[in-house]
């Protein structure tokens, strides 16, 4: 038993007048001693054993054990359906996202989105408890619809479900009709509904389910004799509101009349005017209703939107186009198609931008070329980054996609096979970030691209992290930038090359030891 030799409180802070918060306070001797003293009560393992075990987790042996997991998921790179439902719903005018089931879920969704964007996110719940588990959620839904309609005066309520409502089998379509028949909400209030249990798919599935339901609801009976001359655009579960704005700018330069199906750029980036505005979705219900009469629909996330695209093709008899305007070639293909479909020339301004982007990439390319990269995220997100990395001569090595699917993997594999820089790559479908940890220890890479959760891999493997994805909780304002188009290409490789250069400085910052290469000019 170690005696508490340092129970004295420091009478003064180390520097008088300087307030020490957690960043400094706990590094002081006083607290280091406190931790050491506490340790004996912890039943802690011997320090050598911990070190030894930590080393073992980096081994090939551990990797094999790690990859034989069948039941356990550790640090997955996927969320659940309603998150995507709320996300897409919030891009429509006056729309209140509504989660039918237990109430804790909606607290989590709101928190998650809010932490990423540092913006308010308003959504309501049916607040179902044990009695609803026994008797069903009809009463909760009726009250919930009435109360939320009266209090928050939405133009549309976009309703998705939680696991609870799905497991007990609530008939949400019938429930909503009952609420309307009992005049708790107006008959004409659109209330699209989607089944979104967490045990099926992931957040991108929920995005698709909600979008198709919203479109079905809003376009019912709106099919006209002629088309409206517009094109629809959908970005999928794309966390970069800068992308919506960049797309609109591009379409403006073309002079193309468009409807964005779910424009949540203001939802997640509303101005501070001193007044709180609850609804900021920019896609009007009228426009969305008329989207059935468009000339065609462009999608940028094929694997997020299979049901929506199937619906549009079959029910609307409308042509759908899939593009990934990320990086130079992806953007080229998109712009050429846009030009071909609309008969409008590619604007001079965009051609200039292309030249500048290629010029800038060429300037930085030497620092990126041949760098081995690990990356993870949603299928389409990972796809866009991979094609961009290949353009720069970077070599994707570990590609982890927890919410993967075979079609995606086949399509991406083909791209990798056809590039000299894709030869080292393996697509790890359905794997998680603990698998990735083993991969990064046994087959190290130079760079990791992912969301904020990647910082734990950065800490453990010392691989510098470029934050591209969702969620990004520990860096500010990333979502405001575009990753789409030529401007987006510049932003992305700016993040990548400067992360590499920062890392080089960190590696060479020790005077008279490593600072030989602490170069002024790079």
């Amino acid at each position, binding site marked *: 038993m170690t005696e508490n030799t340092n129970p004295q409180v420091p009478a003064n802070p180390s520097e008088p007048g300087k307030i020490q918060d957690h960043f400094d306070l706990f590094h002081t001797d006083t607290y280091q001693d406190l931790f050491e003293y506490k340790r004996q009560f912890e039943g802690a393992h011997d320090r050598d054993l911990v070190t030894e075990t930590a080393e073992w987790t980096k081994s090939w042996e551990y990797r094999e054990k790690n990859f034989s997991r069948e*039941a356990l998921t550790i640090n997955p790179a996927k969320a659940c359906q309603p998150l995507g439902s709320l996300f897409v719903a919030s891009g429509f005018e006056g729309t209140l996202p509504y989660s039918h089931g237990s109430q804790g879920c909606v607290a989590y969704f709101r928190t998650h989105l809010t932490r990423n964007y540092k913006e308010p996110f308003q959504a309501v719940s049916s607040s179902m408890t044990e009695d609803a588990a026994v008797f069903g959620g009809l009463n909760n839904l009726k009250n919930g619809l009435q109360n939320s309609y009266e209090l928050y005066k939405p133009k549309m309520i976009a309703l998705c479900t939680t696991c609870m409502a799905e*497991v007990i089998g609530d008939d949400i379509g019938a429930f909503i009709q009952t609420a309307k028949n009992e005049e708790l909400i107006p008959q004409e209030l659109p209330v699209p509904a989607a089944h979104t249990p967490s045990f099926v798919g992931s957040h991108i599935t929920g995005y698709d389910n909600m979008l198709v339901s919203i479109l079905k609801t809003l376009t019912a009976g709106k099919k006209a004799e002629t088309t409206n001359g517009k094109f629809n655009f959908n970005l999928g579960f794309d966390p970069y509101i800068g992308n919506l704005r960049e797309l609109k700018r591009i379409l403006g330069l073309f002079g193309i009349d468009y409807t964005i199906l779910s424009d949540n750029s203001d939802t997640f980036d509303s101005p501070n005017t001193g007044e709180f505005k609850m609804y900021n979705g920019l896609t009007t219900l009228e426009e969305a209703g008329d989207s059935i009469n468009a000339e065609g629909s462009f999608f940028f996330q094929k694997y997020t939107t299979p049901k929506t695209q199937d619906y549009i093709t079959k029910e609307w008899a409308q042509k759908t186009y899939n593009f990934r305007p990320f990086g130079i070639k992806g953007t080229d293909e998109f712009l050429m198609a846009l030009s071909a479909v609309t008969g409008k020339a590619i604007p001079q301004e965009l051609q200039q931008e292309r030249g500048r982007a290629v010029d800038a990439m060429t300037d930085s390319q030497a620092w990126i070329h041949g760098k081995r990269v690990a990356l993870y995220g949603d299928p389409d997100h990972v796809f866009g980054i991979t094609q961009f990395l290949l353009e720069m001569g970077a070599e994707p090595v570990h590609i982890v996609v927890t919410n993967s699917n075979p079609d995606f993997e086949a399509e991406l594999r083909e791209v990798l096979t056809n590039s000299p820089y894709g030869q080292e790559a393996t697509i790890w479908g359905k794997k998680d970030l603990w698998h990735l940890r083993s991969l990064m220890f046994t087959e190290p890479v130079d760079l990791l691209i992912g969301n904020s959760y990647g910082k734990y891999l950065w800490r453990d493997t010392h691989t510098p992290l470029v934050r591209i994805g969702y969620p990004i909780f520990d860096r500010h304002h990333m979502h405001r930038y575009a990753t789409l188009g030529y401007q987006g290409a510049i932003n992305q490789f700016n993040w990548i090359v400067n992360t590499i250069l920062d890392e080089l400085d960190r590696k060479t910052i020790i005077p008279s030891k490593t600072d030989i290469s602490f170069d002024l000019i790079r």
Partner: protein
Amino acid sequence: MATVEDRKALVQEVLEAYPAKAKKSRSKHLNVTEADASDCGVKSNKKSVPGVMTTRGCAYAGAKGVVWGPVKDMIHISHGPVGCGYYSWSGRRNYYIGTTGVDTFGTMQFTSDFQERDIVFGGDKKLDKLIDELEVLFPLSKGTTIESECPVGLIGDDIEAVARKQAKKTGKPVVPVRCEGFRGVSQSLGHHIANDTVRDWVLPKADEYRQLPEGYEPGPYDVNIIGDYNIGGDAWPSRLLLEAIGLRVICQFSGDGTFNEVVMTPLAKMNLIHCYRSMNYICRFMEEKYQIPWLEYNFFGPTQIAKSLRKIAAQFDETIQAKAEEVIASFQPRMDAILDKYRARLEGKEVMMMVGGLRPRHVVPAFEDLGMKVIGTGYEFGHGDDYKRTADYVGEGTVIYDDVSGFEFEELAKKMKPDLIAAGIKEKYVFQKMALPFRQMHSWDYSGPYHGYEGFEVFARDMDMAINNPTWSLVNAPWAE
């Protein structure tokens, strides 16, 4: 100066927006405190009204996120579909010391990631196998807790049977926690359920599991810190103070705590409890079973810290009491300097709070130390005993709102125009868009610690930074004035 009557009228106005039934139910949860009242006069711990935008979470959040989650050397499984574990992953800033992924696991997410087949065929086999896999990959873990999510309770899985079997097989504790999100009306039942699992699954075997520090002899000054979750490191300055007055802290439950510390608890002479709401159950049990008395304390702000240190010391002998006075005196110059600096900047500022646990009352005196006044407060998931205790903390005319809805909070804030709102992340940006200064009182807005003397310095700095933030003066464009 608003009178009680003025404020009651204002509450009535806010309630007018509700449909009749919801209005009736919500009206019981809102009140204005009268002079010398012994209670806040609101109903609490009732079901939230559907559709009004409650801020509450669920039992799972209370059990996994609050009580068990911070026990750092155990693995806490989010048992069921992927979402619950994902959203609560590493979100609560329960600081801890350890090598994550090797001997500690606090910022990791473990889930059984239920698929449709698990709903149809049940998840017990998967759970059983999952614990086998944990043993292979994390041999240094000190045990497992299973936090069940909604579907688990609805499909009739027997997680207790799996837990018993695996506890035998692994020789480590495996604790099944039935905290499905539909149970109860908020996080609060999750706290209670988690406390009960400590009572039923851990303490009966405490002697068997316990590893005593070498040469440990029970002493007269052994205490447990209960209900400090070490947000931003809160529990450490608290521990420092208790040790400085001569007590020996043998357990932190659960911030930066270990399983061994949990089983050390019955050896203590007293339970010192900070978050009464989430941990009173286990304190009451230990009082009954082991005759360990418990005492609530408040380490927010110098007034309450001094009061609490004296109250704690009074339970022990004169040496402790003398040391408590020494400690209080030794910090006095630091506190005077801080109050000198910040009172001048914060005097008379008004605050509205809405948080969970203990903070809607415990933080009131810390604001008062800074010369500020709390004009409204309420709990996300408080009970009657919380509101009773709150009456001792707040003055006449304070607006009390239980389980406040988004609508009520916005409307009250618009009418009451506080200088600062102190609530959670979901509220933060709503009010900042209204150009109202805001601080998160769950996560300390990524700052902290706020407990103890050192914590108060950080608290004072942060409140000043929020209220006197120069960007508020930029909200109105000059041409619009």
